[in-house]
């Protein structure tokens, strides 16, 4: 896919997002910034994520599998200001061939934790409609182990549970919701920190989620649960990783790139809990060098309001 096509796709998504807004209730599946939280209320989201990569065409024939259990807790300080914490638990394994031998390397453990705050600075409610815009910002703390060693030595960074670095991120999230459908979207940028003379590439992403009520088709006065079909798009651009050698930064030519995922999903919303599942399928992957391409990411989980 050419760079021009990618730019056009990015501009199209960004243009759509100008006209839509923030997640209030059902909220997107592949991002957390739109989760609704009332004052003094908690919301918990648990997600199981299974990520599979495509066959490696390089001589190393790498086969990377990443599974994660992600726990998110949100708390409403007041109706506009909410705090969130997200802690992942990873199970990663990598099969590869080197010197005509096949090796398996793996790790398990708590990953880096994210803490962020969201402030809703625009809210416009109408009968059975709402439109909200919020800003968010936070950091990722290096709570995961980034120095795990196996019999072959220190694991590569992609296999470590943690990055060892402090990252900072900020963005804007918008929601427009009616009884029939909901649109959530976000733009965000993440500045990666440096550790052990290594800095992962900064990340820019644009996400949009469209949820349409499938059931019940007609609302009655005693309707207390909705079934939504969901379609999301995630455009993610990663800069090259950088190695600091003698105070000189060297780009890793086999890292970074741009990916556009299309994500069909389903969501069942009741008064107290939400069940959800989605599959992120990459429709554009313009990766640098021999960076591993994603085959799919399957996410399923639940959310509880209390």
């Amino acid at each position, binding site marked *: 896919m050419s760079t021009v096509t990618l730019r056009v796709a990015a501009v199209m998504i960004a243009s759509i997002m100008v006209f839509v807004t923030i997640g*209030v*209730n059902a909220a997107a599946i592949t991002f957390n910034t739109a989760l609704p939280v*009332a004052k003094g209320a908690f919301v918990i989201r648990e997600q199981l994520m299974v990520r599979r990569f495509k066959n490696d065409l390089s001589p190393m024939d790498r086969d990377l599998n990443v599974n994660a259990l992600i726990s998110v807790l949100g708390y409403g300080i007041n109706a506009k200001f909410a705090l969130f914490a997200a802690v992942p638990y990873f199970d990663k394994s990598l099969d590869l061939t080197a010197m005509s031998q096949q090796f398996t390397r793996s790790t398990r453990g708590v990953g880096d934790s994210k803490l962020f705050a969201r402030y809703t600075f625009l809210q416009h409610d109408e009968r059975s409609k709402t439109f909200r815009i919020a800003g968010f910002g936070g950091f990722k703390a290096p709570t995961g182990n980034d120095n795990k060693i196996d019999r072959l030595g220190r694991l590569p960074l992609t296999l470590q549970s943690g990055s060892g670095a402090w990252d900072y991120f900020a963005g804007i999230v918008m929601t427009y919701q009616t009884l029939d459908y*909901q649109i959530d979207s976000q733009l965000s940028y993440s500045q990666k920190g440096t550790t052990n003379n290594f800095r992962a590439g900064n990340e820019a992403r644009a996400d949009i989620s469209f949820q349409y009520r499938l059931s019940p088709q007609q609302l*009655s*006065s005693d309707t207390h649960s*909705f079934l939504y079909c969901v379609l999301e798009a995630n455009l993610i651009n990663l800069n090259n990783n950088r190695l600091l050698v003698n105070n000189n930064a060297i780009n890793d030519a086999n890292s970074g790139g741009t990916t556009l995922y299309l994500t069909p999903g389903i969501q069942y919303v*009741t*008064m107290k809990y939400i069940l959800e599942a989605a599959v992120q399928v990459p429709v554009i992957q313009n990766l640098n060098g021999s960076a591993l391409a994603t085959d799919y990411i399957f996410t399923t989980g639940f959310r509880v309001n209390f």
Partner: protein
Amino acid sequence: MNKSNLVSLKSLLQGLLFSLFIISLTLSTISSAAETHYQLQVNGLVCPFCEYNVQKKLGKLDGVLKVTANLKDGVVNVLVADGKTLSEKQAKKELTEAGFTLKSIESHQRKK
């Protein structure tokens, strides 16, 4: 049956009648007690998750007996016990904290 027995029977019947009178009087007072039904038009109610937040916020108020929401019409019905009230200020505060906007509030007395 001697005269004294008749007198005591008469007294017993009088006491019984008086008791029945007091009981019926009490029951009639209770039956005239009225709960108040408030109908709140709430903007921003868009899915069942909203409903839970509204029920939780309004349900904790003193005297509130029941909270139900009608998503289709954007209406929240609140039943409040006799002698208690739900002010517009209270309702607005709780709904704002839950993330919604109170548009109007109406009350109706409802006899038990």
